[in-house]
């Protein structure tokens, strides 16, 4: 009997589809039939998936980001709990704590995490830095000084994809780097208004504001991969992004540690890494056969070999920290190393806050970023408003 | 038995009641013309008879059957419209046979009736054309043909000739009249605002104004004894001359006086006894005024002369105002010339100034 699995995801680009293919091949090898349903854009794909679940015609498995996106699906009994498999596979032991927390609701696993993305990497062009005789910065004040020097040389200091998401991503990098993990958690997690009113926060916001001067005027509206391309082509020096950006460098034939480097900007120490990732969830079903297919999928997803292969292609690191990453690139190894110390792990915004709250903050950030006349105080005001109102 | 009988019918468009308890009987084989100015309700009445409009109360009988709630097709009527209303995408033949085909009449029967109607109307050679390949007159013939094949006992015409030019109008008018004669017992109800059409076609004319019947009568009656000012003015071209004045008691009975114009009313048939001193309007048709060197009224000056071929209309005026006179074309008269007018008292009409009713 055919074991047919329809998988709905939004990994449509070349690198992403190569990664997905790892799973697909593995699944096929295991005797199943992988029906690939890729829809570009997380929003579109999720909306389609949720609509289908609500409509009673769900795919076998669908992609989500780690975090609160699927909370309500759980409360509404639309998702299957996979705690049995989790216990069998000891997921709680082999995965980073924050990822486990993000996948568990009411004490049960409801999602299968497949990778870990670091979100606040600084990618830099080694050649540009070498030519300018500069070192990659370790703290944000340093970064601003470095940036000014680069700018004077006619190089774009920071390449930024000028869409609200990436502006917000940059803000989070600054917040966790300059404000620290605690402030980051208080801000996105507990919505601590006291923390927002603190001088540290204001300083961070002002620092973030100063970065505007280091971004080229063509940024607004730019896609993030076009921004990455600026670094690849030596037009820009630095680029904050998640490690998925590595795919771009790889596609351009560049190697981590050679043409480009990655680092975490923070307090000067090894740095805090904001981690999130992708998960798959499994719509609840009463059909035995369907459940069996899902079981098989789970096996495939967390199989160490496919984990390694998948994450190499995807640019992320395996969600199983027990996998040997020596065959991966320098950035991945660095990432793996940083994560060994749980105190360096910072939960991504998606894990801490609801999409609604992050959205509200994103609105505030993009307004602040695009309006040089807006003061840090005004921004704080807005953020407090969002904390109060956003559900 | 009357062919069509409209009994106490009220038609209403929402709040607006067009007719309020109108009754009308039409005899079998009669040619009835509904005559009136635009908006007087002619089409409404016709549509109600045809069943294209629902009546709000009252009944409509056709051929001795109460058809108030029948479908148009079941009333035994046929209708011809001003705008021809030919089905544009069908050939003439298809246009004419549409109704029969709807009624599932056998093919040979359809064929026969269409050919017969086409022959009657001399449109056999047009049968395979489409309406847009026809002239106006031909189109209206086809429309009449379409009505003919229905074999109806009552024909309804809604201003069928209004879209045609004068020449064609005259031709088709005669043809319709001939058709009526030929069909024998067929009743025709014909709507028009053209009084010439009404006069020439009708057995009886129903004059309507503002949704009210003003007068029903033969063309001759209507022309000679209009029952009120409206009918008098509406029928006849050139229009009747109206002169405001009063009735005075004279030596030989009553006399009409308007300024220095005076007219003894000997021989005038009053519909009821009149007192002197009422305000009245005197109506005289232009052809009943005769030009003379010495006449009833004198001191007129010619204003405008309108030669119309056979006759000439002379507009002449004195101090009291101007009058139209219809003269035989032969006499040459020129503007500025002086003349006197003779009046035949038996031909005039008198109306009450306030009600407009004939006295």
């Amino acid at each position, binding site marked *: 009997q055919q074991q047919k699995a329809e998988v709905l995801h939004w990994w449509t680009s070349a690198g992403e589809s190569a990664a997905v293919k790892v799973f697909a091949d593995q699944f096929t090898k295991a005797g199943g039939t992988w029906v690939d349903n890729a829809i570009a854009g997380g929003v579109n794909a999720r*909306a389609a998936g949720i609509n289908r679940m609500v409509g009673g015609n769900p795919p076998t498995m669908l992609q989500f980001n780690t975090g609160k996106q699927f909370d309500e*699906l759980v409360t509404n009994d639309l998702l299957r709990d996979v705690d049995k498999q989790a216990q069998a596979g000891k997921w709680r032991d082999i995965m980073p704590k924050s990822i486990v927390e993000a996948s568990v609701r009411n004490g049960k696993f409801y999602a299968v995490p497949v990778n870990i993305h670091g979100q606040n990497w600084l990618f830099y062009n080694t050649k540009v830095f070498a030519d300018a005789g500069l070192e990659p910065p370790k703290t944000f004040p340093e970064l601003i000084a470095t940036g000014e020097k680069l700018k004077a040389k006619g190089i774009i200091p920071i390449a930024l994809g*000028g869409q*609200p998401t990436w502006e917000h991503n940059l803000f989070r990098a600054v917040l966790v780097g300059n404000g620290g993990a605690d402030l980051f958690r208080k801000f996105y997690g507990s919505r601590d208004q006291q923390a927002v009113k603190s001088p540290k926060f204001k300083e961070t916001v002002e620092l973030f504001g100063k970065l505007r001067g280091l971004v080229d005027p063509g940024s607004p*509206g730019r896609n993030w991969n076009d921004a990455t391309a600026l670094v690849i082509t030596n037009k820009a020096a630095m680029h904050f992004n998640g490690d998925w950006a590595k795919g771009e460098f790889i596609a351009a034939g560049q190697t981590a540690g050679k043409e480009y480097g990655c680092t975490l900007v923070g307090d000067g120490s090894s740095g805090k890494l904001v981690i999130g990732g992708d998960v798959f969830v499994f719509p609840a079903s009463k059909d035995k056969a369907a459940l069996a297919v899902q079981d098989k999928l789970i096996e495939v997803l967390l199989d160490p070999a496919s984990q390694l292969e998948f994450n190499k292609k995807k640019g992320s690191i395996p969600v199983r920290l027990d996998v040997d990453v020596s065959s991966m690139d320098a950035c991945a190894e660095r990432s793996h190393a940083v994560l060994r110390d749980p105190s360096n792990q910072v939960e991504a915004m998606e894990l801490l806050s609801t999409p609604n709250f992050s*959205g509200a903050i994103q609105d505030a950030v*993009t307004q602040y970023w695009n309006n040089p006349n807006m003061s840090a105080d005004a921004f704080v005001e807005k953020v407090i408003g969002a904390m109060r109102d956003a*559900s | 038995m009357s062919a069509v009988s409209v009994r106490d019918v009220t038609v209403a468009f929402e709040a607006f009641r067009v007719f309020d308890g109108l009754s009308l009987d039409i005899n079998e084989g009669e040619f009835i013309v509904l005559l009136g100015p635009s908006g007087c309700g002619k089409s409404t009445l016709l549509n109600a008879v045809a069943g294209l409009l629902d009546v709000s109360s009252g009944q409509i009988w056709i051929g001795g059957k109460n058809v108030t*709630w029948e*479908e148009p097709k079941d009333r035994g009527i046929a209708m011809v419209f001003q705008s021809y209303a030919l089905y544009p995408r069908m050939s003439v033949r298809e246009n004419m046979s549409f109704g029969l085909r709807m009624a599932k009449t056998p093919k040979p029967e359809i064929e026969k009736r269409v050919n017969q109607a086409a022959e009657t109307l001399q449109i056999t050679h047009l049968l395979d054309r489409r309406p847009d390949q026809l002239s106006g007159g031909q189109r209206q013939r086809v429309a009449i043909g379409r009505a003919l094949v229905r074999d109806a006992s009552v024909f309804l015409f809604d201003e069928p000739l209004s879209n045609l030019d004068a020449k064609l109008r005259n031709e088709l008018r005669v043809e319709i009249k001939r058709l009526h004669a030929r069909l024998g017992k067929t009743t025709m109800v014909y709507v028009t605002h053209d009084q010439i059409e009404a006069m020439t076609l009708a057995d009886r004319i129903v004059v309507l104004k503002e949704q009210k019947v003003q007068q029903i009568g033969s063309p001759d009656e209507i022309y000679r004894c209009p029952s009120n000012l409206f009918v008098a003015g509406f029928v006849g071209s050139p229009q009747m001359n109206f002169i405001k004045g009063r009735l005075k008691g004279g030596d030989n009975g009553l006399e009409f006086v308007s300024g220095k114009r005076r007219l003894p009313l000997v021989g005038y048939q009053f519909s009821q006894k009149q007192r002197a001193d009422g305000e009245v309007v005197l109506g005289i048709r232009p052809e009943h005024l005769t030009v003379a060197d010495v006449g009833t009224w004198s001191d007129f000056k010619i204003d405008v002369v309108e030669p119309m071929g056979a006759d000439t209309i002379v507009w002449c005026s004195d101090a009291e105002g101007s009058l139209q006179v219809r003269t035989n074309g032969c006499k040459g008269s020129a503007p500025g010339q002086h003349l006197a007018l003779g009046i035949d008292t038996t031909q005039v009409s008198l109306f009450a100034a306030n009600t407009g009713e004939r006295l």
Partner: protein
Amino acid sequence: MDTISIRAPSISAPRATVRHRIRTRLPASLALLPTALVVLVVYIGCLLWTVRLSFTSSALLPKLDWVGLAQYSRLFANDRFLTSAENILIFGCLFISGCLILGFLLAVFIDQNVRGESLFRTVFLYPYAMSFVVTGVAWQWFLNPGLGLQKLVRDMGFPNFTFDWLVNQDMAIYTIVIAGIWHGAGLTMAILLAGLRGVDGDLWKAARVDGIPTWRVYISVVLPLLRPMIVTATVLLATGVVKLYDLVVAMTLGGPGIATEVPAKFVMDHLFERNNIALGTAAATIMLIAVVSVLAPWVYARYIRSQGRLG
């Protein structure tokens, strides 16, 4: 006996009336039934449901609790919504008037008995065949300072030429207007051209005899005659304004900042991205109220009150 025979018709009439009405109107009613169902279920039903949800705290999935006007007070404290509302006003006014003006000019110029009229007409009309997504992509490309017009002119030897509206907070909304006009002017042209062709030729002759300059005839005589066509065009364009979404997403994604956010995008984002159905539906309800209060009187006067021709 007597009374009965007199009353007979009025007794039988109502029954006959009902039968008659049913017989003649049943097919028409049946034919309209599917549409009526759709109107009832989809248009009215969904809208009521939407309004109802705006009084709940629904997040990812709809739920039917009751939080009163809470979402509305949030909505009106929300910068982005207010900006969206302001943007749609700006866009609506400029887009509609822009299309009308450009469309009118195009129609007038095409009407000058020009050679290649049908070619021009087709050229002006083709953008309407493109989806807003395509329009947006094309214009984003063309207006992008680094790729399009600005680069082009600079490469031609004007290194200081700047046209950066697309990335300029204050001007970005106007680039959307430009793209919108590009898309809609052709349709307006077609409608107005149809109107121009319907103008009585005698009017033109009268004006020439009176010695009235052509442009003046267009303004003072022809324009007033085009009113029904202008209304039609405005209505068609207005339906596009309220739904404005794809174009913004394709061109600016609402940015820079929130400079080009529009209500439909607000609704869409909150429904599907932000898991905040309640706020999204509240915004939708506000849009609905705005649309209905502007249009209802017109629709009522123009379409509901006026009866069919059969009386």
